């Protein structure tokens, strides 16, 4: 069972629709009992880190997500959902994340760059992984974010994208996958990634 966690922020409908289109049945819920039965947990997200983590706490989902990550359930974080997987974010303050992975979320240096990092940017392969199957170096995906991951676990980075710094674009550590861009808004390339995801998780 694939579950999309509905924790009161973001573009859940778009994510739900994209998975359904790929032939994956999904349930949108914040019900802990249902999430505990899932084989795949999707954590979507658009918005601010503070609101997101507060909502996860409010709905009592933090322990639930941690316990399922340890159990080996697939966890897929998209955009803000990926950022939530890490230790800490400095978005408008100093907020603790889920801490499933080691790293911090920091702001782009806007003295040199336009922020948000908004638009289509190219993927740069760091290592082979099933999630990156059939993707080439020239493929563009759609990003919208002002903060990025400074990763302590370099081995987990599958693709980066260059925007002043090397931005982790796809990460994977065992059963945990994160995407900083929006696969459901990334045209045909996004569909390849969703297909890869489907082959991995179903």
């Amino acid at each position: 069972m694939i579950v999309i966690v509905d924790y009161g922020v973001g573009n859940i409908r778009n994510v739900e629709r994209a998975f359904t289109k790929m032939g994956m049945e999904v349930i949108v819920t914040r019900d802990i009992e249902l999430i505990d039965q899932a084989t795949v947990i999707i954590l979507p997200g658009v918005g601010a880190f503070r609101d997101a983590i507060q909502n996860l706490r409010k709905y009592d989902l933090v322990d639930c997500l941690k316990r399922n990550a340890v159990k080996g359930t697939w966890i897929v974080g998209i955009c803000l959902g990926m950022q939530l997987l890490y230790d800490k974010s400095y978005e408008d303050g100093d907020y603790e994340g889920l801490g499933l992975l080691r790293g911090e979320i920091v702001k782009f240096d806007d003295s040199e760059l336009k922020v948000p990092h908004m638009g289509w940017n190219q993927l740069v392969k760091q290592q082979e992984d099933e999630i990156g199957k059939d993707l080439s170096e020239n493929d563009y995906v759609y990003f919208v974010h002002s903060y990025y991951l400074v990763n302590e676990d370099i081995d987990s980075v599958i693709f980066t994208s260059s925007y002043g710094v090397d931005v982790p674009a796809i990460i994977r550590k065992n059963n945990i996958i994160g995407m900083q861009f929006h696969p459901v808004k990334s045209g045909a390339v996004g569909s390849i990634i969703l297909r890869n995801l489907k082959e991995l998780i179903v």
Partner: protein
Amino acid sequence: MLSKRIIPCLDVRNGRVVKGTKFTDIRDVDDPVVLAEFYALAGADELVFYDITASSDERNIFLDIVRKTADTIDIPFTIGGGIRSLDDFDRLMKAGADKVSINSAAVSDPQLIKEAALRYGSQCVVLSMDVKKNVEGRWDVYVKGGRENTGMDAIEWAKQGVALGAGEIVLNCIDTDGVKDGYSLDITREISESVRVPVIASGGAGTMEHFYDVLTIGKADAALSASVFHFKEIEIKELKKFLRSKGVEVRT
């Protein structure tokens, strides 16, 4: 590298695309959802829909188009036209819009930019500006579809809008709009250099060189146009090939 974006714009009235189209080869040329899908497949990086209707009945038709578009295309799209309140934002975001652009309402109530940015994040809030050069050579901000001069300075308003939380600016130059004589390069460049958010140039595209000029000399991050695409004067694939051959980074 981050690519420059090419954005077709669809003006929608009473459920149909207006400003004319010349798509004899697709089944229902004036259906905005059909046209949106066509552009998404043709290589558009993003789409903008403007709701140019007034009545509430037509608003509901438009909302339905937003939903259907979100169901159909897999690239981002922005909705503009007649957005007055956070409730309007809410309805459109829930219907599946990725971004919402505000114009006149932002001028009369700048706090709307801030409130929308706090609720949805800056990346969802687009400040759309209609500007026109005055006799002193400075650029004024106009509202109400370009009919009313606010007397506000365009560069100052852009800066203020970004400070309030706008994550992107659409700069539409009234003088060049529909004239097909090229974008206004000087004001586009000035605004692009004055703010740290992406600037989308609008108004004036007639040739592929115009796109090249505004993305290089004008320093725009994206270029928007309606008629050259609707009338098939320029094909997006050809335009991108041209831009790439001139060294402009565009998505393949």
